[in-house]
């Protein structure tokens, strides 16, 4: 095979030949297409990307991106992504996770990832139901609603993913819609480019089990106008600049909270927060290790040709020496 001098990257490059078993009309198709397009736009070679999925319909998305992929356990893609990225900080790591995976079984990991701010992109497929197990109430389904699989109305209130992401410390927070692919691609590109943990809540109607918040509902067929609007088109500025003073930060956060609470007839999508005031975890490691980015754990030489370790531990353990 000849090697082109300037290979042209198209979204097709990232598309593997693996049969898709999502339902017809599933919002997941739009998300996967958007991932392909975002990677192509950023021109990232496939061997520098790892897509990490949990369990559920969302977790299968990693089979449909032709890069490194891990199908992990229910609720656990975040710590896997953390391990991959910290072992090799030159990889672009993308988490594909559902609302149940992220906000229920994996909520502890979600919160603590925010505290670390490792550089990865977190795409949450939010359809308010457990689709793979046939439509039980997800943690983002509002209190009192009854989707078609539920024998009784939902007795739990919904968690607000944007608010939880803010409280946890995510430094880039956005919301997209799986049927607005052009907008979604822009968001994913920004999320990947952000140096830190970027959380993107993606509204993704489940055509099979969520008969309340459907494509038609988001299109506002019942109220005569679309429910979704673009924050950036209305002039919302999400950026907290580096070295911002306390008043600026407080004003930004209050504005964020106001926007994150909007739901119903007007639902904002777009970039809610870009916090440039907090460094990523890898920088914190580098300050301790020194040459972390040059020789991260994944590429560190371990032993000489005789299998003898290259590590000299004597200075470390001097305190134990008996004389």
């Amino acid at each position, binding site marked *: 095979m000849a090697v082109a001098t300037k290979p042209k990257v198209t979204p097709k490059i990232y598309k*593997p030949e693996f049969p898709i078993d999502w339902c017809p009309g599933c919002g997941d198709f739009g998300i996967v297409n958007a991932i392909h397009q975002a990677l192509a736009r950023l021109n990232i070679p496939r061997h520098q990307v790892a897509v990490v999925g949990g369990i559920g319909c969302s977790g299968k998305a990693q089979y449909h991106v032709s890069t*490194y992929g891990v199908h992990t*356990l229910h609720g656990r893609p975040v710590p896997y992504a953390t391990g*991959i990225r910290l*072992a090799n900080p030159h990889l672009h790591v993308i988490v594909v996770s559902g609302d149940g995976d992220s906000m229920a079984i994996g909520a502890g990991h979600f919160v603590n990832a925010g505290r670390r701010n490792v550089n990865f992109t977190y795409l949450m497929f939010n359809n308010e139901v457990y689709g793979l197990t046939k439509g039980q109430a997800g943690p983002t389904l509002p209190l009192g609603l009854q989707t078609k699989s539920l024998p009784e109305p939902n007795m739990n209130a919904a968690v607000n993913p944007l608010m939880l992401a803010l409280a946890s410390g995510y430094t880039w927070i956005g919301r997209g819609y799986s049927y607005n692919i052009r907008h979604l691609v822009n968001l994913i590109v920004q999320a990947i480019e952000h140096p830190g943990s970027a959380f993107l809540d993606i509204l993704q109607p489940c055509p099979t089990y969520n008969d309340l918040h459907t494509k038609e509902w988001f299109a506002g067929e019942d109220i005569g106008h679309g429910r979704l609007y673009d924050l950036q088109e209305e002039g919302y500025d999400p950026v907290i600049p580096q070295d911002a003073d306390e008043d600026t930060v407080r004003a930004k956060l209050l504005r964020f909270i106001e926007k994150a609470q909007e739901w119903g007839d007007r639902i904002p999508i777009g970039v809610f927060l870009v916090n440039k005031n907090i460094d990523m975890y890898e920088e914190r490691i580098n300050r301790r*290790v020194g040459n972390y980015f040059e020789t991260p*754990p994944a590429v560190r030489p371990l032993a000489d040709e005789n299998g003898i370790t290259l*590590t000299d531990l004597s200075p470390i353990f001097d305190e*134990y020496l008996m004389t």
Partner: protein
Amino acid sequence: MAREYMDGATAIVRGAIDAGCTFFAGYPITPATPILLHMVRELPKVGGVALEAEDEIAAISMCIGATLAGARAMTATSGPGISLFSENIGLAIMAEIPLVIVDAQRLGPATGGATTGAQGDIQFLRWGTSGGYPVIVLAPASVAECYTLTLRAFDLAERFRVPVFLATDKDMVMNMATVDTEALKRVPVRERRLAATPPPQYRDPRWRPEETFLPWAFEPIDAVPPMAHFGGPHIVRVTTSTHDEHGFLTKDPAKVQRLNEHLWRKIMDHREETEFAHYDPQEGADVLFLAYGTPARAMREAVRQARAAGHRVSALTLHTLWPVPEGILSFALRGVRRVVVGELNFGQYTREVERIAYREAARHGVPAAEVIGVYRVDGLPLHPEAFLKAIT
């Protein structure tokens, strides 16, 4: 001679770093916390990454993720943490992840005796995840062995691409002993077997190496496939599900059967490579003392006293618990009338010894050795008297 006064935790950390460990994630739990603390302090000094995770599930998940990207990883916990590891241990078996897991055992069940030693996890470590597939469990009986067997654990993890447990306990990890560091037995660092590097066109985004490279192909069935790190020249897919040679989920019965048989046979067909023990035979002895971990120390004292009193006693300290070192056991059981097994549980390993004793007796047409278990489950160490009383 360089003498150092150190605890098992220090020896384990030292062994891990000498074995090339570059990544550690753990969560505080008595009595494994000293390993976490030492790692967080020492690993960055040699260029590694060590972190305190939000829970045990995150800790082992991070270790598996780091291994996929090319690190050598270890985590450490106690019984309650092993419970939380369970599902990820299954993933590590399924995805053939080399990984070292230290279990500093404490008295159970549940929170149990957090500050007291025990050996109640011995069957749990073997059967602690669904499916019943084999893992390797090593058990050091001294601070020096904590060092050597940690190296051995990393070696076997790489050899078989499987999680390897180091079964220690509170007294082993936290009690200090004088160690001659120059006499410490080393195990050479085994290089990770990686998939052959493909031609440079892998940087061409249009090249599809996954069409020719099969990361989950094994031939013959007991062969361990080479790894391909994330970020390297091959595109690989890792899954918790039953998968084909590409790493795609499959339900094809023939492929499922072959994969599962592979996970079994890659270890069980080569179990002799995993068998380690210290055997101290005495000419003409028909009594065998047997122990692993902390009770082996009491056993050694019991052997000294028994021999001084004119008894003929052999002693076997097992360093490998799983797979059961059947070769070593059947050798040591020859001509033995009585086996005394000392454990800090209700005889979890005694039953394995009994199983081998009956099988060997049937094979040779002789009466089976009588297997006597001496137990203690009050959190205190076994004393030499427990062995001595069982001689007659």
